[in-house]
């Protein structure tokens, strides 16, 4: 009875994100199930993304979700293995972004490369901004993310940069540019942000 009830509780527990420690204490079956779940991405995330793609009136069976859960984990292992092999051939220890893109191309998913490069570029931009912002202001930066995303949805990424630059300094924009240049170290991110500074100036003039 207790074992059956625990087995029934486990899926719901994991789906709702309950703490794992109570289950670890109960039984060996629970431990095995826990380790098994650890090898997969959370089924709630998988289900949510699937629902975005299927027709509005469509549904997904539970075993279909679980199978897809395994499929995407297998995809991660597949890409990782290919990228890792490349690193070993070149006697490097750290898998970097280029290795992943190369692996995806080699495995036949060329369609993913352009979207990934676009996302990576944006990822670098935001990482660059994070580096230039003092740590004590990062929480404030996160609060502003909603505002930035609103601008992004309107296809105005420059306004997003403009909003984030507001967090750093006062209204005068010329001192802002100077502060930016003083903070940066020479790298590609600096050149990208400089371009953004110019665009901000243009945006300012138009506003």
């Amino acid at each position: 009875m207790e074992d059956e009830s625990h087995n029934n509780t486990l899926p719901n527990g994991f789906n709702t994100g309950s703490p794992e420690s109570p289950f670890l204490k109960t039984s060996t079956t629970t431990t095995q199930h826990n380790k098994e779940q650890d090898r997969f991405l959370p089924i709630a995330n998988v289900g949510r993304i699937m629902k975005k793609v299927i027709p509005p009136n469509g549904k997904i069976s539970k075993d279909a979700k679980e199978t897809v859960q395994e499929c995407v984990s297998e995809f991660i292992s597949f890409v990782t293995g290919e990228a890792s092999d490349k690193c070993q051939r070149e006697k490097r220890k750290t898998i970097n972004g280029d290795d992943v893109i190369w692996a995806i191309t080699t495995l036949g998913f060329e369609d993913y490369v352009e979207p990934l490069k676009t996302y990576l570029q944006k990822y670098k931009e935001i990482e660059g901004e994070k580096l230039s912002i003092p740590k004590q202001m990062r929480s404030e930066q996160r609060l502003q993310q909603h505002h930035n995303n609103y601008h992004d949805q309107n296809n105005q990424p420059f306004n997003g940069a403009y909003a984030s630059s507001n967090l750093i300094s006062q209204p005068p924009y010329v001192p802002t540019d100077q502060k930016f240049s003083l903070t940066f170290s020479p790298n590609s991110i600096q050149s990208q942000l400089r371009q953004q500074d110019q665009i901000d100036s243009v945006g300012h003039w138009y506003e």
Partner: protein
Amino acid sequence: MVMAEEEESGVSIQLEFPKGRVKKIMALDKDVKRVSSEALFLVSRSTELFLQFLAEKSAQVAIEKKRKTVNLEHIREAVKRHQPTRDFLLDELPPPSQPTKPDRPTQPAGRPKLDPPPRGTRRIDLFFRKPELDDPAQAQPPENPAQAQPPENPDQDQAQSPVPVDES
């Protein structure tokens, strides 16, 4: 945890999957030493793209078969239709007669069917012959008539072969 946000504009870089879990799955490969944050980000994003692709194709298969619920068979068919995906996934998919996990609290409601048609059995055999890893699974088809599993087999049989009952 990761904040889940809609990506209708396709611009947001918020990840749908928790980074820790993705990293843990990557680390299952013992040859993997270190992973840069860029690589982790790219693997997470490509996994999302793959999942969207797989869900989209499975939904198409379900529509072709005039079903509202996407099930295991639709996923298998979607995998078969894409060569790169088939190369690494077909052997990983569970055989039609076996459930993914033995203990499942809920099962999708399906029409009960009395006898599986011989055509379905043949197709299962054809499916098992191609990959080598599926050889042990060939023992399953003879057990099908012996084991009566109304809640599971009818769905898969219906998905594989057209039945006059459905047409009427």
